[in-house]
């Protein structure tokens, strides 16, 4: 069993008085996908730039494929998609991909890659004339053209339309299947849920939660929301529900029950409403999403 592709312990990075990364730990096992999830400014990009050797850490230990991240031996084995891509402004898309391919001994066929990423008709378009989404796709092509065993993707689907995003998801899934480890950042919940084996949620440079999407949105952490008359006495409801349920009035007249929402729990809630002589309206049962997890942990919306 090979060691982890990426291992980060106590990573700290400061820019002047600002601490961008404040003691992050994470580990990307070989051939798995880890999503670094958080709002803008959470420290995702800084973390990925340090791991891909573009920025030096101020403190902490970072091992990439068992070595220091900036070593040339490591850079020959990884592929990186820096945020916003990067190319000569006047270079043609095809030329840029061929240049990056020439840095590897056994690259994928650049023309094939342009084709599958929908860039064939833009192969002779200069970089500065590509749309944001096209630049993103070129950057992704540059990241994977060298057949790396570890790929860093910083906001890989930012600025892409849904079809392109779906294509990128397919690509990441195929990379993982073929044994490539992927560390990606995103602020899209559905992206993390769809792609990642592990999710690390960061905010203000710290890890606020980590686990698989299933663990983070664990099955018994369901919730039920309904509307009814404001100010009802929830203590009475609590006595009717088994231990392990949480009830709250999130806004006047809006109620939230968190816990395992089974028929017995639903029955207890509706009979309590009947006792109060109110009609529960707009009843919704939902599995917690990563979005809810993030909101619970930070008290803020992700976007």
């Amino acid at each position, binding site marked *: 069993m090979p060691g982890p592709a990426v291992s980060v312990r106590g990573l700290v990075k400061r820019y002047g008085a600002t601490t961008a990364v404040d003691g992050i730990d994470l580990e990307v096992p070989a051939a798995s996908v880890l999503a670094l999830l958080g709002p803008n400014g959470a420290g995702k990009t800084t973390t990925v730039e340090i791991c891909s050797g573009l920025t030096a850490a101020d403190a902490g230990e970072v091992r990439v494929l068992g070595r220091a991240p900036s070593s040339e031996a490591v850079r020959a084995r990884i592929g990186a998609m820096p945020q916003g891509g990067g190319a000569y402004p006047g270079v043609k898309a095809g030329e840029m991909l061929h240049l990056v391919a020439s840095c590897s001994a056994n*690259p994928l066929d650049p023309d094939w890659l342009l084709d599958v990423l929908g860039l064939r008709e833009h192969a002779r378009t200069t970089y500065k004339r590509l749309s944001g989404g096209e630049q993103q796709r070129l950057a992704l092509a540059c990241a994977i053209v060298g057949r790396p065993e570890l790929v860093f993707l910083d906001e890989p689907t930012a600025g892409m339309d849904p079809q392109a995003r779906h294509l990128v998801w397919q690509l990441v899934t195929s990379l993982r299947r073929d044994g490539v480890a992927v560390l990606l950042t995103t602020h899209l919940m559905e992206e993390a849920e769809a792609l990642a084996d592990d999710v690390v949620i960061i905010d203000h440079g710290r890890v606020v939660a980590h686990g698989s999407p299933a663990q983070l949105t664990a099955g018994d952490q369901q919730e039920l929301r309904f509307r009814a008359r404001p100010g009802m006495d929830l203590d009475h409801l609590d006595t009717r529900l088994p231990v392990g349920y949480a009830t709250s009035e999130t806004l006047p007249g809006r109620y939230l029950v968190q816990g395992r929402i089974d028929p017995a729990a639903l029955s207890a809630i509706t009979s309590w409403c009947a006792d109060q002589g109110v009609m529960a309206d707009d009843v919704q049962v939902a599995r917690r999403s990563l979005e809810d997890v993030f909101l619970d942990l930070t008290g803020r919306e992700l976007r």
Partner: protein
Amino acid sequence: MSTPPPTFTEGTFAPNPARGPLLGMLRAQAGIETRLALRNGEQVLLTLLIPVVLLFGLSLIPLLPVPPSQVAQPRVGSVLPSILALAVMSSAFTSQAIALGFDRRYGVLRRLAATALPRWLLVTGRLVAVLAVVVIQVVLLCVVAALIGWRPSEMAGGANLLGAAVSVLLGAAAFGALGILLGGTLRAEIVLALANVIWFVLLLAGGIVIPLSMLPGPIAVVAQFLPSGALAEALRATMVEGAAPGTGPVLVLVGWAVVAGLVAARTVRWR
């Protein structure tokens, strides 16, 4: 995209990483940077068109004073060294600084720093591309000069072409290091403005079109320590007098190359 996304057969992305051959990387990077320099209209204007036009103009129209020792020669013989110095300054310094400034803006250094391309090769590739452009400039300007009457063998001492080639190389090193220093540290717009202003000032007052001996005293004193003055004087000494480039100009060019190179190595930002 109207077609459905492709499905990737298993093993398509099976890892097989290894660094490419160094020579191949160098060829690819230097090749692209040379092509970009020759494709960019503003850079071509600066590096090829203006020098050729000035070579013609200053050779055919008696605008500039000619040193007394050379009045018997065709004007092009005394104009060509000035224009070669201008050409080297245009490509190695101004054009390269501007290109580097915008390359940084568009993130290409970060992009390439994330590949297996070693950092030293990244710099080498840029320098090779600059040299390629300089070679093209020198060949073009010498051919044009020959067409309008330049005969190196008929110069006073027979032109020292090897010495001239060494001078061009030293000039490219000095201006190249300065160009990397300027383009690698400041914002693209500021680089654009500064590189052009410096080009213009050095062209007129830096000893390029007006030889040091014809510049007003205080300006001449300063200009002999500038890379422009040193390169132009070295080229005049070798191409017109058939002499060696001269210790002074060589030391000045080497000095600028070393100092600017060392400062650049410490301060150039990769983004």
